Every structure is written in C-alpha cells, then in structure tokens.
C-alpha cells in the first residue's frame, strides 16, 4: 500500500467532506455529524473499491 498517497488522500477527503457539509447545513453540530458520516462512507467505499481492484489485478 502506498502510504504517502494515503497520507494525502485522507486529509483531502476530510476537508472535502467538512466543506461540502458546511454548504448543506447551518447548525454546527449537524455540519460536523454530516461530515463524519460522509467521511466514513467515502473511506469505506474507496477501501472496498481498492480491495476490489487489488483482487482483480492479482
């Protein structure tokens, strides 16, 4: 696994989720909660996609 790319992808995803959620809602708690849920969903989706591609490239 390329950890240098991971160290860039994780903060990038976090920033995108937080800024995107901040443009959807006004309440601080709702923004943070929505960003956390979106971050978790994105990471799980990308992780599954990554494993899927590794499995296919074997």
């Amino acid at each position, binding site marked *: 696994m390329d950890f240098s*790319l991971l160290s*860039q992808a994780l903060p*990038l995803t976090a*920033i*995108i989720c*937080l*800024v*995107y959620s*901040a*443009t*959807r*809602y*006004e*309440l*601080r*708690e*709702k*923004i943070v909660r929505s960003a956390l849920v979106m971050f978790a969903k994105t990471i799980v989706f990308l992780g599954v996609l990554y494993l899927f591609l590794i499995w296919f490239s074997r």
Partner: protein
Amino acid sequence: MTDPRVPLKNPVIAALLAFVCPGAGHYYQGRKFKAAVFSAGILTLFVWGMVLGHGQPVYSQLILRSSSTLPQLSQKTPPQKFSWAYAAQVLVGAPAWPALLQDFRFRRDADTVNFLSAPLESEFTGRLIVNSVRGDQHRHITGQLSIVPGRPEGGRTVTGTLTTTDESGDPLTLNLGGQIELGRRVFGSPLREFSCRVLSEDPEVPAGRVEGSVERGILNWFQAPLDTNELDRLNGNLSRQFDVACVFTWIAGLLNLLAIWDAAQGPAYGYGDEQPEEPEKKPEPGKQPEPEKPAAAKS
C-alpha cells in the same frame, strides 16, 4: 427558500467577498464557524497543492513549444492556449489572481529575450563545452556567474566571469564575453536559460561555451505562463506528485464555488434542525382504506 434564521445580510457583497477570499463572505455575515471552516479548509488545500507542485501548478496560459533550443520563447507572441485548469483554480480568489498579472507581464516582456539590462549575479548550473581538435568536450559544471552588460543602458553583449571548479576540484575562473542567449525575464520556471562564449585569453583555458540556466527571481516566475517543455521537466522531476498538486488546487477552487453559493443563497438543505417528514401510511393489501368520516355537524 432560505431559512430566515440565516443572516445573509447583503448576499451580493457576501458572494463577492467569498470569491475574493474563502470565508470572507461568511465572516461579513457573522457566520464565523463557517468562515473558519471555509478559509481553513480551502486555503489549506490550495497552499498544500502549491507546495506539492513546487509553486508551479497555477498558470493561466500554456505556451505550445516543440523545440528545446535556446533561448526560452524568443518569439514575441508564441502560440499559446488558455489553461482550462485555471478556470477551476481562479475560483479560489485572490491567491490565484497573480497568474493574470503574470500573463500580462509575460506578453509585455518579449523584448527581454537575449537582453541584459543590469548586472547579473547568480548561481549557474549547466555544462561547459570546450572546443578542441578532437571535437567538442562537454562537462557538467556549477558555479557563480557574474556578468555586466557591455553598455550602461543594457544590451545583448556582456562581459563577466564564471567561477567554478575544474575536474580535480581546484577553483577555475572562466572569462565570458560576447553575445548572450538569455531566456525571458518573466516565465513560469525558476530556471532562466543562459548561454555565453568562453573567451580564450588564458591559454590554459581553451575557448568554448557555457550553456545552462541561472536563477529567475520568484516575482518573475510565480504563477507565470509556462510551456510544454517546462511541464515535461516538472512531470519528470515530481512525477505523480505534480498531478496530485494540480488536483488539490482544482478541488480548492471548486469547493469555494460551493462556499460562494452558500454565502449568496444560504445552506442548500436547510438550517439543519428540521424534523424529517413522516412517510405516508400505505394501506395494507386486501384492506380497503377507511373512508374519511365527514365532520360532525355542529348542532
């Protein structure tokens, strides 16, 4: 419709401020948490991209170039095209605006090719080409260049020295003179192409040329138009890191577009404390829905 609890103030001013600097529009509206999120998130992403790309992912014009001969872009109006990546980057606002100024300076600056207007002292990196009866000999050298124009008002001929070391590591001073080849003053690369003849006053140092590059000041290369050769050099040196840097700056600009929209129109999904609507009850299969009872007549 925007929730009345969201203080939009003057939405046009807020949107303009959000465009100038991420978060500024929300700060003007008093939405300080959002201002902090937008300015920290978007500016961090943009600056991070600039650092990863060694300050060169943002440029408004790409010059099309096929040959790699000296000097850089001697044509006054070289063929160029608008960089569509800049359409996303410019949305970040003021941090990406220097590219427009540099494009203006680049177009105005064609006369600086092969022209030295003031004494130049700089690090030199390149090669020494020595003419000999057995053919030209090339050697990589680095050193300190010091040249002055032949005339006080500047010109294409110079005199000066290049202090370097010979193959055994001993100090070596090359006398330079004659016409120079010098890249544009304003161009999107920290390296400015340079070439000059080596004079043969000293019989120990055979005549030849030095070809390479000198330093270009940051104000003359930051966000300035660059060419396809410089892009090749960046991709060769930084590889995938340069692509990641470009993507970071694009995403920063696109995220600020959402922030500008939020400053003008408010949050897209509402305030955030709305209760979800209850789904309508569907009738069970086989059962007729009960007819609504008529309201009892008031006696």
